[in-house]
């Protein structure tokens, strides 16, 4: 009987020691807990950056499409005006049949001048918009090293955490 009690006490002592050791391991880490909190913080930051940036490529692609439209509009306006001026010349230079006479009656230097004035205003408006977009893009470009720096800091923090395993 005494032997049994002695063995039981020994086993109990060993187990308690093991338990204590494991408990210390789990509480030493409030360190582990703080590591988890740090990991969560990192995750939050990465999610925040990603959310902030993930729509940018779509927005830039939209800007590219708009820019294409502006360039096309400008060139169309110039080509159309060149055609009008050529027609105007044609109306002066040639002996015209009645149909050409009729077509020419719609085109005058005054009407072409009005068209040119309208186009000029349109060009100026588009130039303002494109300048604003260019400024925005340049600012965006300046932001890149800052964002890269922030990501690098996050990566370093993650590596340090990894090392504390």
């Amino acid at each position, binding site marked *: *009987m005494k032997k*049994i009690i002695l063995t*039981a006490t020994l086993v*109990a002592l060993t*187990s308690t020691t093991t*338990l204590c050791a*494991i408990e210390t391991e*789990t509480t030493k880490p409030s360190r*582990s807990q703080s*590591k*988890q909190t740090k*990991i969560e913080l*990192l*995750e939050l930051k*990465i*999610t925040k*950056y*990603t959310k902030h*940036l993930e729509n940018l*490529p779509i927005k*830039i692609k939209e*800007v*590219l499409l708009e*820019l*294409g439209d*502006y*360039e096309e509009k*400008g*060139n169309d306006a*110039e080509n159309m*005006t060149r055609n009008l*001026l050529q027609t*105007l*010349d044609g*109306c*002066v230079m040639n002996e015209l049949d009645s149909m050409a006479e009729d077509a*020419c009656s719609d*085109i005058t*230097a*005054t009407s072409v*001048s009005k068209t040119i004035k309208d*186009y*000029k205003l349109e*060009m*100026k408006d*588009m*130039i303002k918009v*494109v300048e604003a977009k*260019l400024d925005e*893009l*340049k600012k*965006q*470009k300046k932001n*890149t090293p800052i964002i*890269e720096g922030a*990501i690098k800091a*996050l*990566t370093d923090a*993650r590596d340090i*955490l990894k090392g504390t395993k």
Partner: protein
Amino acid sequence: MKRKILMALTVLGCLTVVNADNNTVDWEKEEAKEVMLEQKTKELRSLVVEIDMLTTHAIRVAEETLLSLNNNLEFFEKVETSESFRQCVVLEEYIGSIEKDRTIALDLYRAKKVTSKQYESYTTKADERKNRLQSKLDKKKCK
């Protein structure tokens, strides 16, 4: 007594195992999170690279568009300020205003607000002026 001791020992042993298991689960979770973080960071980095490339490209396109629009504007300004074109416009405007005045004069005559003599004298002068301007316009080959 022997049984009681054995039961106590079993409970103690189980507690130890459960605790150790919990600890392993915590490590596994942590590792999984680290892997996920690594993946997310990689994705974020490639997103930034993509944005940077797109931005560079967009800046170049915007600069080209700006240049093209400025060229268009320059073309319009050249045409508008070219002396011959400007003179054509002015002549056409004069002729147009004479035609308008002539219509007004006819309305006044019809409404008997002016005499036929006054109307004829006005239209004769107006026509002479119009013909003079028209011949100038023709010489300029505006139309």
